[in-house]
């Protein structure tokens, strides 16, 4: 067996939502890596394409989407400022909010990673009860199980 060394880049992908756990994940990255040269961070929020069934009319769907996108933009900018305050150069912190069809949010996040160059994914752990995790699934657990060729940080 040869010990081929894999080169690791310093690109970090933080997958977030509006939860307190996501905020903690962002803060953690700020505390650990803020002020250190060379790291580039992208804060990602995948907007799941809302189910067609959820809206009585397409006008309501468009209205919801437009309001939701404004909220997401504000949320991501807030997280970006946390990292900048923690010592990241503004040019090294970017945000992304693609809209995807997401039967599984974890798979959507991993698909984003596959399309980009991030060797580390950071997620917050939702404080789900065991029953809740069984019934509805856990994004962080699924990312840990299914992520390949990258490191995953799960922030409590």
């Amino acid at each position: 067996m040869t010990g081929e060394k894999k080169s690791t880049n310093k690109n970090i992908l933080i997958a977030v939502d509006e939860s307190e756990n996501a905020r903690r994940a962002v803060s953690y990255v700020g505390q650990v890596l803020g002020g250190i040269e060379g790291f580039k961070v992208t804060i990602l929020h995948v907007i799941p394409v809302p189910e067609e069934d959820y809206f009585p009319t397409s006008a309501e769907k468009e209205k919801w989407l437009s309001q939701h996108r404004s909220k997401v933009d504000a949320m991501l900018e807030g997280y970006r400022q946390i990292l900048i305050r923690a010592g990241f150069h503004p040019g090294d912190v970017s945000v992304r909010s693609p809209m995807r069809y997401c039967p599984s949010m974890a798979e959507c996040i991993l698909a984003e990673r596959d399309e980009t160059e991030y060797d580390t994914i950071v997620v917050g752990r939702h404080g789900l009860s065991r029953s809740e995790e069984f019934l509805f699934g856990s994004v962080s657990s699924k990312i840990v199980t299914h992520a390949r060729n990258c490191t995953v940080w799960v922030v409590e």
Partner: protein
Amino acid sequence: MTESFSQDDLREMASHWLPHHKVPGRFRIHKDTTDFFRVEYDDVVVLGGKPYLIRHNAKELRFGLDDEVKFWVKRAIDLRNGRLKIMKLVFYEHFLARIGDIEFECFRSPKKEARILDLVSRHKNFMHGYGIQDEKDNLIRILDFVKGMPLSMYVGNMELGHEAYFYGQFQDILDHFFECVQAIRFLHENGEKHGDIRRDHILIDRESGHYRWIDFDFNYRHRENIYGYDLFGLGNILVFLVGMGDVLLPDLKRECHPSISTLSEEDLNLVLNNRVVNLKKIYPYIPESLNRVLLHFSKGANWFYENTAQLLEDLGEFRNAA
């Protein structure tokens, strides 16, 4: 297609299907059903050029509580051929559902139900029908009336001891339920959830003997596991079928059941804290391979089914061994 019916036309058609004294003297005709409270007994709703004579509002039958009238669901007669139909008018609702301590967002969607009706039009384990818009674009579902009783009532009405039920009736019921799980797999494979899987949402078709899923206009906002709630519903029905009803902790305590001291928290339903899932402790003749399937829905489980294929595989193992 727009078709107008005179009062004489309607009376003539109705006279074929109703006793003379029940034929209304005058019909109120609706082509816009937006306000479903206005659509009443003896009115006629014209959809796609077909006249439907409205009979009673449907009721939700649930667990001995007062039946809830569903004003947006009507029994109707297709006046062209006398066939009994269920007409579901458009009713949107969003609400937070709760099971145990878990809250999740649910909503009712006519579009979803119409889409699934299209998908399952040839599937024997679903109700059949179609979606059609009224003149105000309300998406109404016209459903074939399934004659037969809900599975919950069928099992609940059995006057048998559990052992006689388990050895005499259960295998046949399980075979039919297995088909129902396969039917849900079919939905999931096509990207659809049932959304409201309950024991009273399977009707036993009196004519064909098939078990048929009904009422799929509910949807829930899923999180990571899109079909988790459907699977939980299937598990609850399976436990109900194996136990010949719910085996409830308070009942066992009241009866001073000999197994009560052996039960622990882990033997109970994952979410519903008073339901016993580890039924082998109550009925020791339940085979291990079947009980193992039940335990996936218990608090003691360390692994939950992620899809119907896994559940079917485990149930298949028990059926092959039986």
